[in-house]
C-alpha cells in the first residue's frame, strides 16, 4: 500500500502546487479530447440518426462496420493518420504532424464510430411509431428527425460521454501523431507512459489518479448539464 499512498500524496501535492507544466498538460489533454469529441460528434450524431432512420442498400454493412470499428486499435489509427500527415502523405502539405491538430484528427477518427454506433442504438431503441406520430401531428421530415434526436437525447449524451472517455484515455494514437513534445503535444496519457518508462512510477501513478479524477469530474459536469436541460 505504501507506493499507492505515496502516489496519492504526490498527486495531491501536484494539484496543490499548481505546477504550470502539469496544468499545461491537463489543459491540452482536455482541449484535444473535447475538440475531438465535438468534431466526431458533429459528424457521427447525424450519421447515427440517419443510419437508424434512412433505408438504403448496404445499411446493415455500415452499422456492422461502425460496431466493429468501436474497438479500433489506437496505434493503427495513429499510424494511418501519421502516414496521411507525413511529408509524403496526401495531406503532408498541411504540415500538421506533431501538432495538437493532428492529435484531434486521430482521436476524432477513434471516437467517430463509437458515437455513431451508440447514437444508432439509441435511436433504434425508440418507439417505432414515434416518427409516424410526429408526422401525423404535422411534422415535416426535418422536424420529425429533430424530435427523434430530442427523444433519444439521453442515449446520445451517453454516446458522447463514451466517445470522450475513449479520447481522454487513449495514448497510442496521440503519441504517434503528436510525438509527446514537451510544452507542445504532451498530454496526460503520453506523460504517464513516458514517466513509467523512465522508472518514475509514483509520478506516473499520481498523474493517473489526476486523469481518472478529471474524467469523473467532466462526466459529472456533463451529467448535471444534461439533467438540467429541458
Amino acid at each position, binding site marked *: 500500500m505504501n507506493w499507492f499512498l505515496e502516489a496519492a500524496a504526490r498527486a495531491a501535492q501536484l494539484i496543490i502546487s499548481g505546477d504550470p507544466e502539469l496544468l499545461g498538460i491537463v489543459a491540452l489533454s482536455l482541449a484535444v479530447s473535447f475538440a475531438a469529441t465535438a468534431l466526431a460528434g458533429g459528424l457521427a450524431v447525424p450519421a447515427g440518426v440517419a443510419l437508424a432512420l434512412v433505408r438504403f442498400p448496404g445499411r446493415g454493412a455500415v452499422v456492422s462496420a461502425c460496431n466493429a470499428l468501436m474497438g479500433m486499435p489506437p496505434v493503427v489509427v495513429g499510424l494511418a493518420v501519421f502516414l496521411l500527415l507525413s511529408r509524403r502523405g496526401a495531406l503532408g502539405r498541411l504540415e500538421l504532424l506533431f501538432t495538437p491538430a493532428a492529435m484531434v484528427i486521430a482521436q476524432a477518427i477513434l471516437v467517430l464510430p463509437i458515437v455513431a454506433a451508440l447514437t444508432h442504438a439509441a435511436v433504434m431503441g425508440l418507439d417505432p*411509431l414515434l416518427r*409516424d406520430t410526429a408526422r*401525423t401531428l*404535422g411534422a415535416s421530415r426535418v422536424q420529425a428527425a429533430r424530435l427523434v434526436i430530442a427523444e433519444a437525447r439521453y442515449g446520445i449524451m451517453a454516446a458522447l460521454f463514451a466517445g470522450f472517455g475513449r479520447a481522454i484515455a487513449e495514448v497510442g494514437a496521440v503519441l504517434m501523431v503528436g510525438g509527446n513534445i514537451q510544452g507542445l503535444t504532451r498530454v496526460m496519457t503520453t506523460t504517464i507512459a513516458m514517466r513509467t518508462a523512465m522508472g518514475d512510477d509514483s509520478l506516473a501513478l499520481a498523474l493517473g489518479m489526476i486523469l481518472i479524477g478529471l474524467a469523473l469530474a467532466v462526466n459529472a459536469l456533463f451529467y448535471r448539464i444534461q439533467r438540467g436541460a429541458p
Partner: protein
Amino acid sequence: MTTILLRRVSRRLGRLEILRDVSLRFPEGRISLLLGPNGAGKTTLLRLAAFLDTPSAGSIALESAGDASRVADAVTALAPRRRVTMVFQRPVLFACSVRANLAYPLRVRGLPQPECQARIAQGLQVAALEPLAGQDARRLSGGEGQRLALARAYVIRPEVLLLDEPSANLDPASRERIEAMLRDMQARFGTTIVYASHDLDHARRIGQAVYFAAKGTVNGPYEVEAFFESPPIREAETYLRPGSGFG
C-alpha cells in the same frame, strides 16, 4: 367540410395484398365506423388515409365541398398531411410534459404564441388533463395517455381524424371522455372522423355510418342500426356474432 376520397386504392407488401382496389368516400362531418376482423386491413387503410404510407396503386385525396381546387393527391406533401391526423391504438407520447406534448403539433405549424396557449388550454380542458399539465407525459396511466393523444389531435382542429382502436383496454371514464371529445370535435370543427374499433357497444353508440373491412376489401357505408341488426354480408355476420357459423 372535408373528407378523404380513395380511388381504386391497393396496398401490397411484397406478395401480400393487404388492400385490393378500394374506392370510398367517408361522409363529411360524420363519425364513420371502420369494423372488421384483425388482419382485414383497417390499420393499413387508416395509415394510407393519414398520408403516412403510399398506395401501391390508386390515389388518395382530400376533398372539400364546393372547393375542388383543394384536392390534393400528393402523398408525400406536407400540406395535406397537416389537415389530417391519426391516433394510434397505443399512444406514443413524447418525453416531456403533458403541456409540451399538446404544444408540439402547434409548434411545428408555427402558430402564434397566444393562439397556441389558447388551444393548449382548450385541449387540457376537453381531455380533463388540467391537473396533470406539468407532469411527464410518460408517467400517465393508459387512459390518461390516450386522452392526451386525442387532445394532441384536438388542438390541431383537423379536417379529418383517423382513430385506430383508441378505446381498446380503457377504463370506462376515459372511454366516455374520449367519446365526448369526438362529439365535440365533430360539433365545433366539423371534423370527419373514421373510427376503427373492436369495441362494438361503444362503436354502435357513437357511429353514424359503418364500413366493413374483410379480406382486403372495404364495403360501405351501411346505416348503423341496420348493420348491427341484420349484417348485410356473411363476413359481417360472422364478425358480429362469433360462433353463429357453427349454429
